[in-house]
């Protein structure tokens, strides 16, 4: 090996060791665990069971219920965050007095600690003493059982998540909008393009890479939604608002079924990787075109 290469290796060695210790080893070890049955604390030894944990995933109705709830969060939560975030970004992408202040105010929910967000929404949603039901009653509507009903609890979590994360989508898309050169708008205007056609044929195509990144980040985050579930409903009533991340936590750190929890983690990883690839391919496909 050349002396130069040895020196280079010497410099990157600490990083390689750290990566091996905190990323690669846990990745390999957790995969091995996913092929074992290991219920810590029960006195039973760890035993190799092959693909049994993975087969159990397909028959576990609680897991599929959690997947369904995660799907609702992706569809309604991330979907609404995108639509609201884009609308706000378009509104704020113009010059007006106090714009910086308005943008900062919009960003506040995102700056608050997720735990505090959960506590705030728990108070807001309180059936008897919460301000939301108080306002509903003031406008002569019936109070809503936000957290104590199996038909509304997951949507209450989604609503709080929308409030918290729409600003992220907004600020990312606003940055994308501001990167579009003014000349393009002027050229479109000269060519007689309407505001709608300018949006459809200039703004959207140029904003597309930013949209893909913003939505992809939110999709990955939504797949991991945990804090709001713990603080608002603990997955209840029953299991009506359990998400995949919450169920995985219960399996791993409440029931201490480490083998099954590991297999669930790999299942989630596979789904996230597939979704990310679809998004990134769509981006690359557009670039090629």
């Amino acid at each position: 090996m050349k002396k130069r290469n040895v020196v280079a290796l010497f410099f990157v060695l600490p990083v390689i060791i750290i990566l091996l210790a905190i990323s690669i080893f846990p990745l390999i070890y957790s995969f091995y665990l996913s092929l074992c049955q290991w219920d810590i604390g029960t006195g039973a030894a760890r035993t190799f069971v092959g693909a049994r944990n993975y087969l159990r995933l397909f028959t576990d109705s609680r897991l599929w219920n959690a997947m369904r709830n995660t799907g609702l969060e992706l569809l309604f939560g991330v979907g609404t965050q995108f639509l609201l975030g884009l609308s706000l970004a378009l509104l704020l992408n113009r010059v007006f007095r106090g714009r910086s202040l308005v943008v900062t105010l919009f960003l506040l929910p995102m700056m608050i600690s997720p735990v505090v967000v959960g506590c705030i929404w728990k108070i807001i949603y309180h059936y008897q003493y919460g301000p939301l039901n108080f306002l509903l009653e003031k406008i002569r509507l019936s109070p809503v059982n936000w957290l104590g009903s199996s038909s509304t609890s997951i949507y209450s979590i989604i609503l709080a998540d929308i409030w918290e994360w729409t600003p992220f989508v907004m600020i990312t898309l606003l940055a994308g909008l501001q990167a579009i050169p003014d000349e393009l708008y002027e050229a479109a205007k000269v060519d007689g393009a309407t505001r709608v056609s300018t949006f459809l044929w200039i703004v959207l195509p140029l904003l597309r890479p930013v949209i893909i990144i913003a939505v992809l980040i939110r999709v990955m985050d939504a797949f991991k939604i945990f804090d709001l579930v713990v603080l608002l409903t603990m997955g209840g009533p029953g299991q009506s608002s359990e998400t995949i991340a919450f169920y995985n936590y219960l399996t791993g750190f409440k029931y201490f079924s480490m083998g099954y929890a590991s297999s669930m983690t790999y299942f989630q990883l596979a789904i996230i990787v597939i979704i990310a690839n679809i998004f990134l391919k769509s981006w690359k496909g557009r670039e090629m075109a």
Partner: protein
Amino acid sequence: MKRITVFLVVLVVLLGAASWAYAVKLVVVGDAGHNLKPFDWYAQQFKEKFDVELEVIGVPFGELYEKEKMELIGQTGAYDVMIVYPKFLAEFAANGWLYPLDEFIAQLDPKMDDVTPGYRDFYCKYGGKIYALPYDGDILNLYYRKDLLENEEEKANFKAKYGYDLKVPETWEEFLDVAAFFTRKKGEKLAGQVLERDFYGTAYYGQKDQIFAWWGNIFASLGGVYFNEETMEPAINSEAGIKALEMMKTMHQYCPQDVLAYGYEELKDIFLEGDCFMVIQWPCVGKKGADPAQSKIVGKIGVSHVPGVRREDGTIYYRPLMPCGRVLAISAESRDPWKAYQVIRYLSVETSLDDVSTAETGLDPYRYSHFAHPEAYEMFTNVEDARIYLAGVQKNMEKGYPEMVLPGTVEYEETLGVEISRALSGEKTPKQALDDAAKMWSEILNRLGKENQKKMYQELVSGWRAAGLWE
């Protein structure tokens, strides 16, 4: 060379002296909030008496188990003193993660004879050895609004409707009658006053981690048991279980709509805000209810035993559950178990009356001496009220029904809790829900090792029998 040697010797001597000068530092872990306060209150005394400094780590109530277990599995020695929920004591002790206290007890008496049998034998022992000292004696009690119960107009209306006198409900049927009677809508009258918001007959802990205990109060009084001792078949879907869940479903109609989202705080608040006639709750609610800073119904709270079932001989068979509770244990990896023992003994013996008799903690009485001193409970407006409160708690304590403490308890209790919630929210019938829960319990049992679990369950049951807590 000589200079270097002298320098090193001096350095070692100085470091040694410095370490002597500083007290031993012990790490305490427990559920964050009011129950950790005594560790701060007596920090100076721990230093002066035992030469110990404490670092207190609070973790959320629902996460204490996993935080402790992860450190214990890894044998990290992160904690010296641990607040442990008794249902996990068997698991922790069986795995050798806790320090047995018998040798220390022989040297420094923790006055275990003063501890009531349920807490002494059920909370602190495993396999014939003592692994913990009691810190918080939890049992469920019935709290009700005695001012409303004594109201002449309400008494007359109740008698006209149900044909018997309005009184503290002693059976579950009476409980349902009283709950139905006091459930009123906003605008209706209660004790002559027009209600500004809805008023509820009762409420319960609806979150799935503890809901089993509120169902369990009825189940146990109907003679229910967790498993068949001989076959280890789950017995939660027995006739007693189904009847208990049907009763709970009836009770659900008289509760706030969002009761399935209620944890400890919400259940405490609905009662202490004056919006509910009666609740079944832990003893600390009685103390907090007497504190004007925390309660709008000071002086209006009565305490009694949880309802039960009237037997053929006319006696009432009631079995309140003993969920939660707290004991103080020492990690097997503790850096100084003897000093840790002195600390936990001090809290369990010397300061315990002060700690359980204040509304600033959630700690509840567990020693005979705690019940013998009603004057210590200064939040009550008079000693008689304190005496009534303590008598009510003691009445429940004598009939306490132990919480299951097998390894895997969290999974057993939570799967049962999920199914109870599903029945109460109308997703399933009580029978379907409990049959499904029993099926899941069988799966858990087989996965965790049926024979091992059976052996442990039989040991537990014989311990409960010896303590007079099991028939």
